[in-house]
């Protein structure tokens, strides 16, 4: 029993960075932009989030933990948003190929992230980490002890770090936004058929920019969450590497639906750590490729079934020019 609870708990922990990465990219892709730079944006988010919390603590000599969390979120969001803004300008305004620009952003972003991470280490003399008290605000549950101590469900419901709850709230909000609001409808139309959206009076350019920039920011928060929770508040590019690509996979697996990312990220999280918890006669590295194999299976399956609701947004990857002819 404990084993299962621990597995689920750790699956959620390891899935949380993916949840943010995936939600951000889902929002981006809903507008028809395939931003393959998630990896880069998550790197940027990780490095700048850490830098934000670290320098905040250093400058204030302690400071408020809640404020440190907020600053880390803001720094990582901004970093990712700036990366996505570069991508948006080049693909939306200048209409360059999205695949190539996204890959350029992946290169650029991992460079920036790693540079900032290393630079801090150089400048600060080898070790960049926040204090244990501050770490707690990032890693411990925001709920009181007695709630967490409820048998079985306590840990599973109240035991997670603050980002798990923020992620779930964000996913619900995003699902509501996309499915129930006017703007969400306009966004979906933009991603499906920009020409139609344009003819309906929707400012396609604005929607694409906003979705991509905000989406990039959200993805980048995922990088920060990784660094501040799983990596233990120190720069760890080895561990962060691949998270962004996994997020791109998870977008497909979740069929571009934010609510699916809640359980989808937990499932992927479980697949990442399963080799530590479940002992089957399968080598651990084979476990680790399961998320990708599963994603491929989903991709193939949806293209076989041709159910319209499950397809990628129709204009995904294409740039839009009203007077093209």
């Amino acid at each position, binding site marked *: 029993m404990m084993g299962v609870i621990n597995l689920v708990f750790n699956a959620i922990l390891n899935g949380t960075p993916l949840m943010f990465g995936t939600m951000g990219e889902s929002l981006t892709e809903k507008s028809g932009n395939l931003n393959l730079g998630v990896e880069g944006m998550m790197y940027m988010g990780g490095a700048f989030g850490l830098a934000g919390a670290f320098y905040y603590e250093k400058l204030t000599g302690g400071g408020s933990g809640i404020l440190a969390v907020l600053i880390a979120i803001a720094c990582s969001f901004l970093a990712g948003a700036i990366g996505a803004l570069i991508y948006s*300008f080049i693909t939306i305004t200048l209409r360059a190929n999205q695949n*190539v620009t996204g890959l350029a952003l992946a290169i650029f972003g991992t460079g920036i992230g790693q540079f900032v991470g290393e630079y801090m280490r150089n400048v600060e003399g080898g070790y960049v980490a926040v204090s244990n008290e501050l770490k707690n605000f990032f890693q411990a549950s925001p709920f009181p002890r007695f709630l967490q101590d409820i048998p079985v469900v306590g840990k599973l419901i109240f035991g997670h770090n603050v980002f798990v709850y923020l992620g779930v709230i964000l996913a619900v909000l995003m699902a509501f936004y996309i499915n129930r609001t006017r703007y969400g409808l306009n966004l979906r139309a933009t991603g499906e058929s920009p020409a139609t959206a344009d003819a309906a009076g929707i400012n396609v350019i604005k929607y694409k920019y906003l979705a991509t920039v905000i989406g990039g920011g959200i993805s980048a928060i995922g990088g920060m969450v990784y660094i501040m929770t799983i990596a233990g508040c120190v720069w760890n590019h080895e561990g962060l590497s691949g998270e962004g690509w996994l997020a791109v996979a998870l977008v497909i697996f979740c069929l571009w639906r934010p609510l699916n990312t809640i359980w989808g990220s937990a499932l992927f999280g479980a697949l990442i750590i399963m080799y530590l918890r479940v002992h089957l006669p399968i080598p651990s590295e084979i476990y680790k490729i399961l998320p990708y194999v599963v994603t491929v299976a989903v991709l193939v399956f949806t293209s076989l079934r041709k159910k319209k609701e499950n397809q990628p947004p129709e204009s995904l990857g294409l740039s839009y020019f009203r007077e093209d002819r």
Partner: protein
Amino acid sequence: MHNQRAPLFHLAKRTSLSPARAWTIRLASFVVAILIGGLIFLLLGDDPVSAYGAIITGSLGKKVAIRQTVKIAVPLLGTALAIAPCFKMRFWNIGAEGQITAGAIGATFFALNYYDKLPSPVLLIVMGLAGAVCGAFWAFIPAFFKARWGTNETLFTLMMNYIVIGLVKWLQGGPWEGKPGSQIIPNFASSAVLPKVFGIHCGWIIVLILTIFIYVYMRYSKHGYEIAVVGESENTARYAGMSVARITIRTMLLSGAISGLVGYMVASGANMTLYYSVADGVGFTAITVAWLAQLNPFAMIAISFLLAILDKGASTLQTVMNVPASISDIITGIFLFCMLASEFFINYRLVFRHDSGKEAVSE
């Protein structure tokens, strides 16, 4: 009444632009990238001129440095060549990373198991063939699904990368592990290592041959013609009696084979072993190389060499000026962004609108 603002300008597609002007615009973007990069050095408190100087001397200053730069450029160029036919066909193969890795696995299999059973030249040829076959196989899977059911190839090829990289990780710690617990595949025996020519593994000769091959293939062969037609319009291709599915699969087989060959060269020539990051992002960077070169093989030589200079030069920067080597990725990113942006000014022109209703054309 409702909307009195006049649009400041609107866009129009250029009808034509002379190649000379197009290359002038590209050159200008190059200069802009250098300036932005310089700005970054300034921000870091370094002198941009000496920083660029360090990059140049670090990559081209000595014979050893040039050799290493070429060594970096070889897989980039080879993979860009592999990608070019796919992109010409508008098949967005971003799985070169995986195809390189698959090729490296194929080559390594023979390197580990037949190094003492085959004479070196035969072994090297067998390894190359195995690399090509494995790369082609890895490319075939997404191509087949695309051709048969229209499965999104961008996402499919991307996923395939991580599957095969995971396989290598498993091989490293499992069946092919050298010293137990080391998680490392032992170095190849000397008979399985590509010989050197002018101090660099002979892969550079192979990619130069490939450059000419791809140039001729794309420009003068029937296959190249078919690829160009499919890329322009699948309907036209069908109209002309071409089988789009067959051409898709065949082109991906070729592309995967070349990537696989690159994997073989990197494993056998540069690393002399196999590890999971054998492709090390080359599959992605090569896409930008191919695209920025306008899929022209000879332009790819220049661009892959440029990126190699940045890469090699930046590692010198680290030792000389104590700037983290990841600066190379940043500078590379800036170059890519600027060059991608410049294509816009080649394809479109801004038409400014004045109150008089007359128009001025801005280039």
